[in-house]
């Protein structure tokens, strides 16, 4: 196992190199650059623009720019954001962004799994019954409503229909303004929860349908296998057959999904975070993309690629752990 992990880690290096080269080329292929907006500003002269182009190193040939970037990265210097003039990772993780990203991502993930897995099991064991159709329908409804739209509708319902403002409650963001400077208290925690539940609902419903379908499909496949029949025929209770034998085997492919969702934890749900005013790393990265803030785009990309690769390794590892048949040696 250890040699396997070392081998996988070494594979990452050329992979990240290729990823960085391709993404650097893609950034350069995009029309315009960080200074395009400045070019349209009537009050900025050409001399000033040229100075800025030189300052950001945008006047050098592509391959030279990439070489300098790579050289600095190898030395641990990911550069300074054009936009905030802070180091790249400080820009991405500034303030409480990383903390909130992790809190929101993990809570949503746990909630989604806790709800989706039982529903998937229920759905499979009640295949084609009306109750199966009902849960599947709601699952698909959650999947098919765009998250940003669902978020807007939710806020609209709260403000216009339920008139939460009359009770002194705000929508979006992390807290109501009156708690901004307040010391931590039960009421403040309650207010955080009031602002977090729409996120759980919006992102949760979006991710749940896929998991439900996956769990349902896997379990249905497993339930037809001979060993399940054997288990039944030797007189085991249906509950034991399902939970002890079928579900355990049906859950294997989902472990891979769990590992692969790691980068999404940090980078995902950008649009929902924008609509609901939540500070997340994904938003900082999205802003950098919009403004063509090259050092941040590159740094962020490496970071997310690394996460994806680590997620892969973790998934492999978990799989070996839950399924004794799998060996990597």
């Amino acid at each position, binding site marked *: 196992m250890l040699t396997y992990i070392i081998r996988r880690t070494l594979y990452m290096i050329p992979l990240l190199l290729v990823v960085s080269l391709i993404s650097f080329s893609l950034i350069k292929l995009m029309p*315009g650059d960080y200074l395009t907006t400045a070019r349209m500003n009537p009050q900025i*002269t050409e001399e000033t623009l040229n100075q800025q182009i030189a300052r950001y190193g945008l006047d050098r040939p592509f391959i030279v720019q990439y070489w300098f970037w790579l050289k600095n990265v190898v030395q641990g210097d990911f550069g300074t954001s054009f936009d905030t003039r*802070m180091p790249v990772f400080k820009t991405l993780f*500034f303030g*409480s962004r990383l903390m909130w990203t992790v809190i929101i991502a993990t809570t949503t993930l746990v909630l989604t799994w806790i709800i989706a897995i039982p529903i998937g099991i229920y759905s499979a064991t009640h295949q084609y019954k009306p109750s199966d159709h009902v849960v599947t329908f709601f699952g698909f409804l959650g999947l098919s409503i765009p998250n940003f739209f669902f978020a807007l509708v939710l806020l609209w319902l709260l*403000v216009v229909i339920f008139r939460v403002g009359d009770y002194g409650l705000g929508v979006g963001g992390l807290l109501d303004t009156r708690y901004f400077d307040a010391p931590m208290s039960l009421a403040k925690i309650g207010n955080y929860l009031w602002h977090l539940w729409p996120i759980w609902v919006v992102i949760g419903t979006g991710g749940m349908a896929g998991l439900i379908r996956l769990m349902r499909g896997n379990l249905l496949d497993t339930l037809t296998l001979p060993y399940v029949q054997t288990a039944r025929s030797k007189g085991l209770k249906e509950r034991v057959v399902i939970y002890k034998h079928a579900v355990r085997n049906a859950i294997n492919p989902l472990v891979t999904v769990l590992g692969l969702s790691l980068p999404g934890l940090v980078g995902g749900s950008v649009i929902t975070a924008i609509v609901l005013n939540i500070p997340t790393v994904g938003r900082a990265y999205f802003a950098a993309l919009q403004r063509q803030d090259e050092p941040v785009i590159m740094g962020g990309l490496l970071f997310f690629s690394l996460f994806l690769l680590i997620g892969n390794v973790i998934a492999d590892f978990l799989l070996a752990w839950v399924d004794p048949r799998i060996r990597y040696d």
Partner: protein
Amino acid sequence: MKKALILAGLLLVSSLAVFGQGYDAQPADALVFPIGVAGTPYENAELGTQGGTLYEASIEDPRGWNNHTAHETSTTQYTNLMHRGLLNLDHISGAVVVDFAKGYDISEDGLVLTFYLREGIMWSDGTPITADDVLFTYNDVILNEDVDCNARDGQILPDGTFPILEKVDDYTVTFTLSTIYRPILNSLTFNLMPKHKLAQFVHKLNPDVPAGTFNETWTLDTPLSELVGNGPYVVTGYEVNVSVTMERNPYYYGYDNAGTQLPYYDKFVSLIVSNQDVSMLKFRNGEIDVYALRPEDIPILLPEGPAKGYTVDITDKATYGTTWIMINQDVGLPDGTNEEKRELYRNVEFREALAHLLDKDTMVQNVLNGLGTAQWSPISVPSPFYGGRDFYGGPITEADAVWFEYDPALAASKLDALGVVDADGDGWRDLPSGDPLTIEINANDNTVRIAYCLIIQDDFREAGLNTNFQVVDFNTLVGQLFSSTGDIIQLGLTGGDEPNSGKNVYRSCGALHAYRFSACEDPDEVDLRIDELLNLGANTFNLDDAFAYYKEYQQLLAHQLGYVYLCQQTFNYARYDKVGNAHLASPTSTPGGNNGLLTELCFDKS
């Protein structure tokens, strides 16, 4: 118990000492706003009282706290409240007025400007502000090539030199110009920076720090207690993607005429709300007090306002900026093709025909819900130099405006006269030689702009012009503009009060003279006159003379139809009635204020 009481008392006294900072009495040199005084811009303002918190929303996070290296309003909307300059643009009239300078003289020859600074005024940390701070800001920050500062461009005199700033004494400075250049007054509104805090980061003054250090100074991760200003507010809190909190500067020198120090609100909180629909919901929910609204919000907010205690102001004041289509007179020039089309585009008669096909009224009605005004001039309507006024700064009468009325019949006859007729019977007009003529219109992905272009495409096609409208990426569009590879491009530009701030666009060699870059080598009579008028308008301190030059400049440009203007949204505002003086919000207050609001005069009425 006694000990505890004494301790508590001491704590109270010490905490009072922290919050009790500020002037003992109104400084002799305070800047006094004549609230409610008839004949002044403030005659409709009300006297207020100190206290309370004002909440508003802004669309983006600040990118730093350094006013002079900031390149965007998402940052300067805060730094403009934290810093003030010698001069300012009046929030209401847009005229150049004194701010940190209590007065200024212009020498007889117009070449020496002497500024008298307010004495006894402190930075927000209690350090006195003197001429040294002015010299530091101007010579070591703005004019310092090592500093990435856009404000430097506004300081360039017509001969390429910069004004020379000298200190006469601690409270008097002079700017010496090589030539008379009135727009320099607009540029001398630059915000002052505290030398005692920032000199250590300027490479020129402190060789121990590497070149460029100042550009990475006062970034978002700087402890907020390090930020020092002379404006009405200082930043005291920032939660990324959530909010910016500013608190009153105890040493701000602005007072009302009843002796109350400004600003009235103790705190000013800007919630960062990146989605405009959510901003509106937050306003309706009572979370923010003021909201600069979009035309589409009005049918929702107008009926709801009275019950919820807010007012929706619908004004006919146009906002700054211009929206236009550009007919590329250099079309095909970069690759030597389309010669006949280029010749046609260069013919002003053809451009007039197209101008007569622009249905600006429909654009205002259908796209802006009626909340817009048609444009004809390169100068923004709020500018005192806008040519539609009947004299300098006077009321807008549009008597001198140059309109090309929507008139398809006239357009058709002009096209016929040019020989642009349907030669091959395919239903589309062709070039005079008989070759097919196709017009490409490009705009970026913006609902308002797309709607304008669809209206234009319809009218062009109706007139027999084979027109294709296509949405392209903004950066691609800008690329087309600068390389003269576009055909007709629809875009907009920001605008200001001083016409010379647009010289980069309209001078024949301007970097944004995109409708005909070739005018730089090959200017015609009109181009030369426009260059001359820009210089004449700048070369006098007499505002009436300047206005006359600028009026001719605007009319010439309108007739030249380089950029052909469309329409601009008017300024509309929604505000809770508990916010005093919010009715003074106007597009003019944006340069110094916030979101259109005259922040330092707003007060809590509840």
